[in-house]
């Protein structure tokens, strides 16, 4: 596209617009909790013009001046509010919950948004409804519910990662209160760090990316923490098998300042109960304080800290000799953010954020052997992590009734620690070995964007441009990322949407496949490793049928990725104190394409959805698989989910979800031959085998009861109802038989090697669980 053509498209909206008269703006809140309502509809009944509240709950609507202008504010699950407006003014709306409280589990842009809104490939979750779905170990998880939607894969049994449209987990921009997080798993990745009790809103974007988002290729997951109940003190708690949690929220100064603090920790030492020799602990902590300094200024202080620690200790003691080895793996994330929301005018809303974000992963190994007076000692520490300090500004400029502009900038100072290692060995008689490898690198990333959103009657578009730069040592990278989304509204019930997005990513994730504790290495682009890039095309049709009771969408996507990295075959960073770039394959290309079908019933006593995805994702690296294309490790050809929630009575709900996925690819040896060091295995082409198909049914019943002191809820759930043995990984094992011969007056025990077998490890079969929650 030439520059002239682009400018014409960019400036086109200005010519399409009429004259505004008055502007009404402000926030939309929940009347009881004081939480902002994101995505609330604000419409003028007379002019038929409308808008939707943004991620801060702010709206701005410019309408022709009229004595009869009637502003109607609505949000699903809340009573509508109406207000006559005759002049430009700032007005906050407080909606009270009460209508259709049972509706909407997943909203793919609720109601008319589904057809009219200039967005596509978006999934919105409400944590209240997520809590009604069956949980893993009784623990509901936002990430696991997202895995039940089209184009989102789990990456393995009960895992909480998300693999979106053939991308890897590092290609998801996960924003908690606007701050990007890195690894988001607890409990070896089986549970996400997101505590549903502390979350207000969840929005996943898989395609048609607005220009305000950058530095990731595959998806944007926006999660907003609760601001805290501004009218009364509330305490919520849950006792669960996997973790227990407690949340406090309430006003600091009534209607001026509020807080929310939540903490979660595993209380049941499941591994100790099993006597597995493993000690596992995790916790997370969320806090947020909101200060309304004036009608136009709000400040937010948010914090998160979470950590997992797993250790295995082996010890042996005998006369004059003792041995102890301790392996510990710990990982965690932290962030602190200060955000300032300001209404500069009825038409201009701005957010400024300054934040610190940290992620670290540590592997420690200590070995001590004492014999008589001699002591051998070996210590190893491997650390990897990333620390960011970021400053960003985002502005919403509601320029005309059907034209708004978003623009902003971000500045991030990264400090990478790809693979710091320390190794000390003090073995008796040997010269002491001390090795230290420091890998730290610093980088500066900046970005600017502008985004034009034009929602017309029969047509809409969102054009944007993002420019980013990245500086590390003497290397500079620049990226220009145009984004476009077109929406052709054929009728009130049918629309066709198309989007084109160029994305860029300056950080890379190196991780080992297969089983094991999380070993995520976040690596920078540098002089030798280029930033990853992608281009995604998405075409979709959306329809509302059966009097608006059912919403249907069918989307196809095609995504090309370049400059991907992965470990070289047989390479590892562990114990090899060297430049990480020597351990990787670079310049990888990826292709992902698929068709996604989504049928939802968002309203009524019975709600739920059916999702089906047919997809393919491949990778090519020059030195892997003889340079030929091979399936991405998490390529799933067919994926389907059915989710149903039935509100039996006001206090009882039943829910169930069934999910199916064709088998993930796996690399297996098929041959062997004798070598100098024993049998040599010959692996078939990379990921040329498929594991068995995956399917599972989970059910749950929630029973709540109002008491004199508050509300309590019992949740009974069953994971894997029909006890399907789903694959977690494959491995080889050889039987070892023992022959006991007691002839000849003695016993002779002989070991016999039996057959070699390929076995499937399955983790979780039929598994009932229970959780108890209370709120007062």
């Amino acid at each position, binding site marked *: 596209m030439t520059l002239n053509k682009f400018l014409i498209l960019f400036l086109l909206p200005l010519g399409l617009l009429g004259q505004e008269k008055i502007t009404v703006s402000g926030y939309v809140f929940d009347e009881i909790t004081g939480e902002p309502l994101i995505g609330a509809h604000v419409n003028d009944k007379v002019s038929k013009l409308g808008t939707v509240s943004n991620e801060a709950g702010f709206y701005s609507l410019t309408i022709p001046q009229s004595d009869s202008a009637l502003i109607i504010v609505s949000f699903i699950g809340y009573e509508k509010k109406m207000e006559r407006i005759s002049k430009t003014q700032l007005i906050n709306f407080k909606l009270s919950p009460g209508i259709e409280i049972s509706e909407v589990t997943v909203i793919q842009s609720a109601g008319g948004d589904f057809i009219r809104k200039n967005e596509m490939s978006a999934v919105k979750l409400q944590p209240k409804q997520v809590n009604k779905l069956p949980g893993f170990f009784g623990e509901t998880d936002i990430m696991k519910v997202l895995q039940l939607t089209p184009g989102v894969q789990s990456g393995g049994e009960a895992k909480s990662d998300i693999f979106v449209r053939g991308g890897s987990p590092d290609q998801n921009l996960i924003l908690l209160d606007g701050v990007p997080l890195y690894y988001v798993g607890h409990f070896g990745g089986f549970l996400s760090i997101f505590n549903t009790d502390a979350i207000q809103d969840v929005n996943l974007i898989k395609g048609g990316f607005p220009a305000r988002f950058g530095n990731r290729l595959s998806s944007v997951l926006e999660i907003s923490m609760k601001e805290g109940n501004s009218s009364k003190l509330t305490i919520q708690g849950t006792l669960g098998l996997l973790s227990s949690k407690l949340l406090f929220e309430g006003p600091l100064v009534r209607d001026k300042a509020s807080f929310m603090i939540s903490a979660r920790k595993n209380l049941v030492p499941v591994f100790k109960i099993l006597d597995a020799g493993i000690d596992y602990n995790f916790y997370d902590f969320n806090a947020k304080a909101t200060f309304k300094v004036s009608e136009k200024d709000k400040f937010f202080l948010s914090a998160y800290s979470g950590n997992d620690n797993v250790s295995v200790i082996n010890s042996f003691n005998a006369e004059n000799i003792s041995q102890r080895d301790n392996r510990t793996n710990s990982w965690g994330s932290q962030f602190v953010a200060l955000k300032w929301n300001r209404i500069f005018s009825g038409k201009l809303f701005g957010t400024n954020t300054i934040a610190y974000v940290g992620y670290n992963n540590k592997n420690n190994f200590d070995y001590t052997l004492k014999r008589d007076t001699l002591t051998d000692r070996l210590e190893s520490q491997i650390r990897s992590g990333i620390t960011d300090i970021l400053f960003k500004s985002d502005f919403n400029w509601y320029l005309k009734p059907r034209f708004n502009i978003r623009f902003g900038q971000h500045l991030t100072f990264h400090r990478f620690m790809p693979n710091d290692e320390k190794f000390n060995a003090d073995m008796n008689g040997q010269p002491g070995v001390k090795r230290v490898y420091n890998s730290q690198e610093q980088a500066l990333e900046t970005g600017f964007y502008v985004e034009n959103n034009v929602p017309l009657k029969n047509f809409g578009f969102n054009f944007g441009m993002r420019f980013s730069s990245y500086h590390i040592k003497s290397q500079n990278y620049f990226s220009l990322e145009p984004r476009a989304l077109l929406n052709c509204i054929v009728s009130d019930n049918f629309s066709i949407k198309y989007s084109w997005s160029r994305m860029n990513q300056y950080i890379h994730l190196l991780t080992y496949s297969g089983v094991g504790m999380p070993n995520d290495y976040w690596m920078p682009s540098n002089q030798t490793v280029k930033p990853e890039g992608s281009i995604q095309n998405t075409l979709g049709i959306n329809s509302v049928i059966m009097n608006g009771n059912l919403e249907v969408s069918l989307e196809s996507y095609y995504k090309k990725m370049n400059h991907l990295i992965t470990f070289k*075959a047989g390479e590892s960073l562990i114990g090899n104190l060297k430049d990480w770039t020597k351990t990787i394959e670079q310049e990888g290309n990826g292709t992902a394409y698929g068709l996604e079908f989504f049928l939802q019933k968002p309203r009524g006593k019975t709600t739920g959805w059916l999702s089906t995805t047919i997809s393919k994702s491949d990778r090519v690296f020059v030195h892997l698989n003889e340079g030929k294309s091979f399936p991405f490790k998490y390529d799933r050809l067919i994926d389907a989910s059915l989710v149903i929630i039935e509100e039996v009575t006001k206090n009882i709900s039943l829910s169930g979800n069934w999910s199916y996925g064709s088998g993930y690819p796996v690399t297996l040896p098929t041959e062997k031959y004798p070598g100098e060091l024993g049998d040599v295995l010959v692996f078939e082409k990379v990921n040329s085998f498929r594991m068995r198909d995956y399917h599972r049914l989970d059910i749950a019943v929630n029973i709540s009861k109002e008491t004199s002191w508050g509300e309590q809820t019992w949740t009974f759930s069953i994971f894997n109802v029909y006890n399907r043995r789903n694959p977690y990984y494959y491995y080889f094992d050889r039987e070892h038989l023992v022959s006991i011969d007691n002839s000849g007056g003695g016993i002779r025990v002989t070991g016999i090697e039996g057959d070699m077998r390929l076995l499937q490890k399955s983790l979780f079969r039929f598994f009932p669980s229970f959780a108890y929650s209370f709120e007062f």
Partner: protein
Amino acid sequence: MNYINMILNRVLIFCFFAFISWSCQTDMELEIELPEPKKKLVLNSTFTSFTPPYVKPLQVRLWNSWPVLDTSQAKQITDAKILWYENDQLLDSLYFDDTLNAYTLREFYFPVEGANYSIEILKDGYKNISAQNFIPPGVPIQDYKLVSFAGLNNDNLAYSSVSITFNDPEHTENYYEIIVTDVSNEKNKYRLWTNEKIITEEPWYPSVLSFDSKLPQRLLFNDKQINGTEKQIVFYFTPEQVIDKGKLKIRYSIIDIYLRSVTAEYYRYYTTLLQHKYNQKGDFFYGLSEPLNVFTNVENGYGIFAGFYNDAVTIEIDTLTIR
């Protein structure tokens, strides 16, 4: 207080359910079938221009591959037709020598530096295989030094250190291998370790954390970091020793120390072979690396056909009482 009692009751109920729930949890195993691939021939032959008088310079061993789930014992193939070419000229066909347990030429024959060698193997029921290679130019040991007692290892056994010095040729990519053997028994190779970065940074060298893995019997490295310079390599091994009347003694022995200049194919085969074996000791904590196939330069088959140049020094280790 009533509230506290009530919550405590809930906690007890919760713990009961937690126990029931966890008791349902087990690992499961399910047998999976694999397709059986067609068997291929496996060639193992490394050759050089100089060997001790008791070692036949050209030896070729032949096997076949099996399905990975087949547990039958490997048997050498002894009835294949093997053709040996020097500079594309057929020299002879090899015969199977029962004494050597390998194919060899009837004539006592030394391959030479600078010539190209190729091999072609025909065997009913298998695809014909072929390979070619050469003997690289030699790099002599300039100097060496043995310290017969360099310290005690963590098993309280004595270890020795050896340093060898050589000049790496300029303008060529060179690959090396260090081996230590008994002088009377070339097959008895000592296990070696080193702190030299040009070796420890090789992907095949066992991680400092895999100290439970067996040490390698060969040290392989390339000249990317030392190209065209004089280099001294220090490495260690555990010499033969006994405990006699409560005293630890290093026994008298004679060892050969080889510095081999090897071809790229030789280097790639043995480094990937070592990496392949060490990687099979994956660790739940540290993650598993991606599977690695062992390099082969055998067309339609597996294994190695490669030349090397040997330079050796013979050293006597005197008896020494340690403690």
